């Protein structure tokens, strides 16, 4: 199913055409030509709302073609007997392009606005911490060494946070562009988890992370950069939304056809209504206003998982929440280790 997801609009349009054709042919004698022409405008409008000019052209041409072929005399030919129908067809294109243009504009402004609001908040929060602490260090003399250390650590931590967010945004932009394919290679998942953990301060993680990874885990064929980003965001999420001293459990279990990875942390339970929306861009659960986060992190986790034809879901446990990523194993490494020690 995941594979067809990007084409869902075309599938809907196709089904709509089938439905319209069924109606039109059944009630051919009852309906006026004008009515039939009007219902054929429906798929054009549906696809035009996507804001893609090529898709609009394609569907409009198809719609016009069906009309000329089946309903407008002479039937079973693309010829039409009256000039007035040509005008109808031109109107089809005008309607299609106008809606596409508007849809595009609305889409751009709304995304820009949300992006602007959340990003300005999320980039400004660590930035103000950096500026605040740096100014404090420059202006306060003499300074207690313990305070100095605290301020400097805060600067480092905030810069790391900014760096993570910027990397996430860059990867997100890369995923949005369908023309850049995944850079797939053989990945050692344990290694990638290790790299993801390096993005966080050691003392933050010390003793909190509990990794359970199958020792015989095979190599996985995927995009190592994006998979690392997936792990970084899931760990970041677990660290942000759990109690400071509670453990974070990472479990990786392979089976015949899939690789299942779970990231669990202890926190108050999330309402089921929110669980479904967690992966939507810029969505944040209602009770998290005081935690810095943009709702970009989990949305890119979903994008990365989908790009690998996998699934991601969140569920409540007895004392917390788990994020489960399931990736299908589409390619297996050949056995190499047959050397004798």
């Amino acid at each position: 199913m995941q594979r067809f997801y990007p084409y869902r609009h075309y599938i809907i349009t196709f089904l709509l055409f089938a439905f319209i054709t069924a109606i039109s042919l059944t009630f051919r004698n009852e309906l006026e030509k004008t009515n039939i022409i009007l219902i054929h405008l429906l798929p054009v409008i549906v696809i035009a709302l996507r804001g893609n000019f090529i898709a609009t052209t394609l569907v409009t041409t198809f719609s016009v073609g069906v009309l000329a072929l089946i309903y407008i005399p002479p039937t079973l030919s693309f010829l039409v007997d009256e000039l007035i129908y040509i005008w109808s067809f031109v109107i089809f294109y005008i309607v299609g392009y106008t809606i596409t243009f508007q849809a595009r504009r609305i889409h751009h402004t709304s995304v820009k606005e949300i992006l602007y609001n959340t990003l300005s908040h999320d980039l400004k929060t660590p930035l103000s911490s950096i500026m605040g602490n740096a100014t404090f260090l420059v202006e306060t003399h003499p300074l207690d060494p313990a305070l100095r250390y605290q301020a400097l650590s805060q600067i480092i931590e905030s810069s790391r946070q900014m760096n993570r967010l910027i990397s996430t945004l860059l990867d997100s932009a890369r995923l949005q562009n369908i023309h850049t394919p995944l850079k797939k290679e053989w990945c050692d998942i344990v290694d990638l988890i290790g790299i993801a953990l390096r993005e966080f301060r050691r003392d933050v993680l010390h003793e909190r992370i509990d990794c359970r990874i199958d020792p015989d885990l095979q190599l996985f064929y995927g995009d190592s950069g994006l998979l690392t980003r997936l792990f970084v965001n899931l760990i970041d999420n677990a660290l942000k939304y759990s109690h400071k001293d509670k453990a974070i459990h990472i479990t990786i279990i392979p089976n015949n056809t899939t690789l299942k990875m779970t990231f669990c942390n202890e926190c108050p339970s999330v309402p089921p209504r929110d669980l479904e929306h967690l992966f939507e861009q810029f969505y944040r659960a209602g009770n998290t206003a005081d935690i810095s986060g943009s709702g970009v992190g989990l949305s890119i986790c979903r994008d990365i998982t989908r790009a690998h034809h996998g699934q991601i879901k969140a569920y409540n446990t007895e004392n917390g929440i788990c994020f489960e990523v399931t990736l299908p194993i589409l390619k297996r490494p050949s056995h190499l280790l047959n050397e004798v020690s």
Partner: protein
Amino acid sequence: MKPHQLILIVEDDEAIGKLLHLSFQQFGHKTVHAKDRKSALREIQTRSPDIVLLDLGLPDGDGKELIKTIRSLLTVPIIVVSARSEESEIIAALDAGADDYVTKPFSTNELYARVRSTQRRFLVHQTTDSLITCDTLQIDVEQFSATKEGQPLKLTPTEFNLLKYMMLHRNQVLTHDKILKEVWGVGYQSEMQYLRTYINSLRKKIEPNPTSPTYVQTELGIGYRFVCGKGN
């Protein structure tokens, strides 16, 4: 790293240039700052620096070309400081002759450690001893044996060759292509699966904790780095 060395900083950004200048001055070194390719070449010809720190994105041309030019003029360690996280750029710079790299944002400690280990490689001659040691690991090149904390390690021939190659080229970034070519041979450069599999099995034998390896560090998308004595 000896004090009073001359460090050439090729960087068009004022703030980063200043930061590099301050931190190296702190360690007792002198710095020269060049903002573009032309002045970098001039400084290299007139002052012959001990180390070159080079930003890849220069206003008057590609940094990779500059690396090649420097290489043809002087034997000097070149460390790339890059804001471009595109791995192919870094690999191209390493292929052009750069010795190591750090990506922005970086910590000055990290950069200093890279500079020190790169410079040591330029000063120290390759050992002719058959014993190679790194922390608690030791291999005997002639006997084809390896030990960890005095205990013998059971390694396959490929694992042994891989470990030997990395221990001989410790604390430097080794690209995937280079390791495959040196350990497996010409024609194996694209066999990433071999490399990943053997690194994985080698780690299981020499690393105490596979999720935070102490010896074999992964440089994502680029290669590996075998770390001895915490990079010192």
